[in-house]
C-alpha cells in the first residue's frame, strides 16, 4: 500500500444508463436505489420533475434524467429505477433506465468536458471518464438538481 503513489486516487461511482448513455454518480452522494412506485404527478411543475413519491415516510422529488438532459422520447416499457440522493436536507430521486455496478475509477483517466459536449449534458457534467468500452459522463449531483432557477424564471 505504501508503495502506491498518493496521486493515484480511486473514486467510486454508481453507474446508471439513460437512453443508452452511461452516467456515473459519486457514491458518497448516493443514498439508495429504489424502484419508484405510486408516483404522484405534480401539476404545473417543471418538465424535469417526474413526480413525488413516499419512500419510507419521506417525500421524494423524482427528477427524470432523460428529460433533464433532453435525451429524447421516454423509453417504452422499461421499468425505471431511481437513485436516491439528498441535497440541502431534501430527498430526491434521479429517474434512470437502469442502474449498473459500482465502479472504482482512477482520477487520472478523467477528462474535462470536451468543448463540443451537448450543452444540456455539459451543464451537469463534472467530467468524462474514458472507460475501456465506453465513455462515462460524471454527474454533479447539485448541478443536475439545479432546475429551480430556470423554473422560477419561467
Amino acid at each position: 500500500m505504501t508503495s502506491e503513489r498518493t496521486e493515484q486516487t480511486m473514486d467510486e461511482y454508481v453507474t446508471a444508463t439513460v437512453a443508452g448513455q452511461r452516467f456515473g454518480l459519486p457514491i458518497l452522494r448516493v443514498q439508495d436505489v429504489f424502484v419508484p412506485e405510486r408516483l404522484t404527478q405534480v401539476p404545473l411543475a417543471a418538465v424535469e420533475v417526474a413526480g413525488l413519491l413516499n419512500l419510507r415516510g419521506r417525500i421524494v422529488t423524482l427528477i427524470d434524467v432523460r428529460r433533464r438532459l433532453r435525451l429524447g422520447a421516454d423509453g417504452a416499457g422499461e421499468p425505471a429505477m431511481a437513485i436516491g440522493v439528498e441535497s440541502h436536507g431534501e430527498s430526491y430521486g434521479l429517474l434512470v433506465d437502469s442502474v449498473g455496478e459500482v465502479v472504482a475509477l482512477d482520477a487520472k483517466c478523467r477528462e474535462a468536458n470536451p468543448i463540443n459536449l451537448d450543452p444540456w449534458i455539459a451543464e451537469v457534467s463534472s467530467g468524462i471518464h474514458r472507460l475501456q468500452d465506453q465513455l462515462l459522463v460524471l454527474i454533479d449531483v447539485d448541478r443536475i438538481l439545479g432546475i429551480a432557477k430556470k423554473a422560477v424564471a419561467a
Partner: protein
Amino acid sequence: MDDLLKEFVTETKESLDVVDVELVRFEQEPNNAKILDHIFRLVHTIKGTCGFLNLPRLEVLAHAAETVMGKFRSGAPASAEAVTLILATIDRIKVIVSALEREQREPDGADADLIAELDALLGGIDRKPDVSQPVVGTLAPQVLERPLRPGEVSLDELERAFRETPVEPQATKAHSFPAQDEDLAKAASQSIRVPVDTLEQLMTMVSELVLTRNQLLDIVRRQDESEFKTPLQRLSNVTAQLQEGVMKTRMQPIGNAWQKLPRVVRDLGNELGKQIDLEMHGAETELDRQVLDLVKDPLTHMVRNSADHGLETPAERRALGKPERGRIRLSAYQEGGQIVIEIADDGRGLSTERIKAKAVSQGLATVAEIEKLSETQIQKFIFAPGFSTAAQITNISGRGVGMDVVRNNIDQIGGTIDVRSVPGLGVSFIIKIPLTLAIIAALIVEAGGERFAIPQLSVTELVRLRKGGDHRIEHIKDTAMLRLRDRLLPISRLTGLLGLEAAPKAADEGFVVVVEFGSQSFGVVVDSVLQTEEIVVKPMSSKLRNIAMFSGNTILGDGAVIMIIDPNGIAQVLGGTVATQLAAAEAAALAQVERMTVKDAATSLLVFRAGSPQQKAVPLALITRLEEIDARTIELSNGRHMVQYRGHLMPLISLDDHVNVKGEGAQPLLVFSDGRRSVALVVDEIVDIVDQHLEIQVAGFSPGVLGSAIINGQATEIIDVGHFVPLVFADWFRGKDQRGPIDRPSVLLIDDSPFFRNMLTPVLQAAGYDVTAVAGAREGLALLAGGEKFDVVVTDIDMPEMDGFALAEHLRADVRTASLPVVALSSVVTVDTIERGRRVGFHDYVAKFDRPGLIAALKEQVDMSVAA
C-alpha cells in the same frame, strides 16, 4: 461547559433581553414602579448569581447598574442619559456573557470607564434633594456609597432587606398581589428547559405516528367489522392529544421575535434624531419556533430600514404637516393557513423615480423596459440583490445587503413578501408565512383523477352541482360564476387551474368548494369530495416551491403523496385571469357612485306584505334566507311559535298582532341569522325584490318601522329589523356575553344616513356594545375632543363635508386618538378603497350590509385593544 455556567448564560441572556425592553418602557413611563421593580429584580438576580459563580467583572457591572436603578426606585428622576448609560452597561454585560459562553471564562478587560460614569451619575443623583426617600432609606444610602465595592456581601444582605421591606407594606393595597407572586414562583419551578433538538425529534416522531394512525384508520375503514375499531379509536384520540401537546411546545408568540425591537427603535431614534413610536399588534400570534427563528432577523432589519430610510426627520415631517413623531406599526395575525406580518411606517414612501434610476444604473432593466412596468413592479426591484436607494450609507442600513437577504430568508421558509407604498404616506411590507410543519385538517378532493388536499380552515362550504339542481354555473365570456344565495361567486375548475385534463364528466356536475381567502370568496370546482383527514404538512421541495397553487404536500393514510392546495395561490391566479374584468367592474361601480350625488348607493329591498295590504320592505342584504315551510311543522312552545330548522329550534316573530301564523299550507318566512342562531319573520306574501335608491320620506311613527318610502310607485313601510331582532336576541346575548353593563365596550357610530344609524344602533346594542350615533365626522371628532372615550369607531366612508378617510387621518394625527381602532363601512368595497383605507389607518373594512362581518370586526378590534 460547566452545567451551572451554561444555565447561567442562557438565563442571563433571557433576562437581559427582558431588561432591554423594560428599560425602554420605563423611560416612557418613568413613574411606573412595577416596571422598575421588575428590572431591578432581574439585574439583582444576575448580580447574585455572578457572585456565586465567581465572575467578578460581571458582578461589578451589574452592581453598579443596580445601584443607579436603586436610586430610581427611591424616586430619582430617570433621565434619558441615565437610561442610555444603563443600556450601555447592559450591552457590556451582554458582550461579556457571550464571551463567557465561548471561552467559559470572563474575558479580560476593565470596565472602569462605565463604572466611573455610573458612579458620576450616582453622585449627581445623590446631590439632588431626594424628597420621596422612603423611611427605610435611612439605612440604604450609607451602604450604597462608592468605597463599599469590595465588601459586597453585606451590601447584598442590605440590598435584599431594602428590596423586601417595601414589598411587604405594598402587599396590603391589593391582596391579589402575593397570590400572583406565588403563581409566578410556582410557574418558575414547574417549567423546565428542554433542548430544541429533543422537541424537533419528538415532533418528527409524532408526525410519523399520525401517518401510521391514518394508515391504520384507512385499513379499518375498508373492513366492515373489526375488533380493532375500538382500540384504534382510542389510539386515534391519544395521538390527536399527543400531537396537539407537542405542537404547543413548538409554538411561540411572535412577540418573542419582537422583543428586541423597542430597544432597537429607541437607539436608532436617538442616533438619527428622530422621534419614533413603535406600535405592536398581535404579539400573541403564535408561530412555529423554527419559523420564528428565521423571521427574527429579517423583521429587525426591516424595522431598521423603516426607521432609517422610511421616516423623515421631525423637521421634514413638520414641514409636511405630519405629526413630528414617526410611526412604525408591526402587526401579526393569522389568515387561513398563513401568518401575516405587516411592517408599516408613515414615512415618505418609496421613491419610484430613484428605484427606476438605480435599477437602470445597476443593469437590472433597461430604460425602455422600466417605462413599461407598473408602480408595483418597479417597487419590487428593492428585493433585487445589492439594491439600496439610500443616498447616503449610514451605519444602520443602506449597504445594499438589505431587502434581498430578507427575501431570501423568507423564501427559505416558503413565505412571500410584498411591498406597498404610497408617496408621502409610507411603506408597508407584508410578509406571509405558511404554517409549515404543522398538522392541519384538510378536505381531500379529487379532480382530473388526482387527489388534492384543501386546508379546511379556508373552506366555508360545499355546494353540490347537479343537473337541474338549484345551483348552476353561468358563464360570462370565459369566466364562470355561481349564483349562491344573494351573491355571485367567481368559480374555476381545479383541473383548469392546474392544467390537468378534465374528467370526461358532464360540465355541470361535481362540487364547488367555497373557499374564503382574506376578504374574498371564490369557488373551486372539483369532481368529488372524498373525506377529511388530519394531514402532516410537509414543505414543498425547493424545486416545486415556485408553484403558487400549492403550499405543501403530505402523505395520506394510504401512503400516497398528495399536494396541498394554497387558497392564496388560487386567489392570485383567479385574480389574474379575471383582473381586467374586475377592474372594469370596479370602475363601473365607482363611476356609479360618483354619478349619484346622494350618498347612498342603490339598495336591494325585499318587498313583502304582512298583516295589512300595505307594502313593507326590508334591505335584502340583512336577510339570510327566504324560506317557505309547511305551516303544520310550526310548533307552539313556551308561548312562542317555533319551527325546527336545520337541527335547531328557530323562533318565529311577527311584525304585529295582525300577522297570523298560518294553520296550514305554505308559510313564507324571512330568516335572519347571526351565524349561530336564526330567527324568522312571518310574512303573508313576498312581493318583489327591487333595486333602488332608498330615501325615507316620512319617519316612522311606530316602533319597528323606520319610515316610509316610495317603492314601485307605492308607499311602503321600511321595516326596522334591528327592532325585532333584539326582542329575541336580547336573552340570547345575555347568556352568550357575560359582560356586565359597566365594561360593555363603547362604539362611536358615524353615518350621515339616518337609515343606517337607526338600523345599526339596535343591532350593535344587541351584540353587547354601548352605541353613540352621530350624523357626521365633525360631530364625532367634537365628541372625542370633548374627552368622550370610545373603544372603537365605526364610520361610513361616503359622507358630505368630511369623509371617512379624512376622519381617519384626523384621528391618526391626534396622539389621544391615534390608537383608536376604526372600522370603515362602505357600500362599495373595492381593492382600491381597501388599500386607501388601510393607508389612512382603517383597522378593518366592512361592507355596509354585512352585519355579521361588522360584529366580528368589532369584536376583533375590541379584543385586540383590550389585549394590548
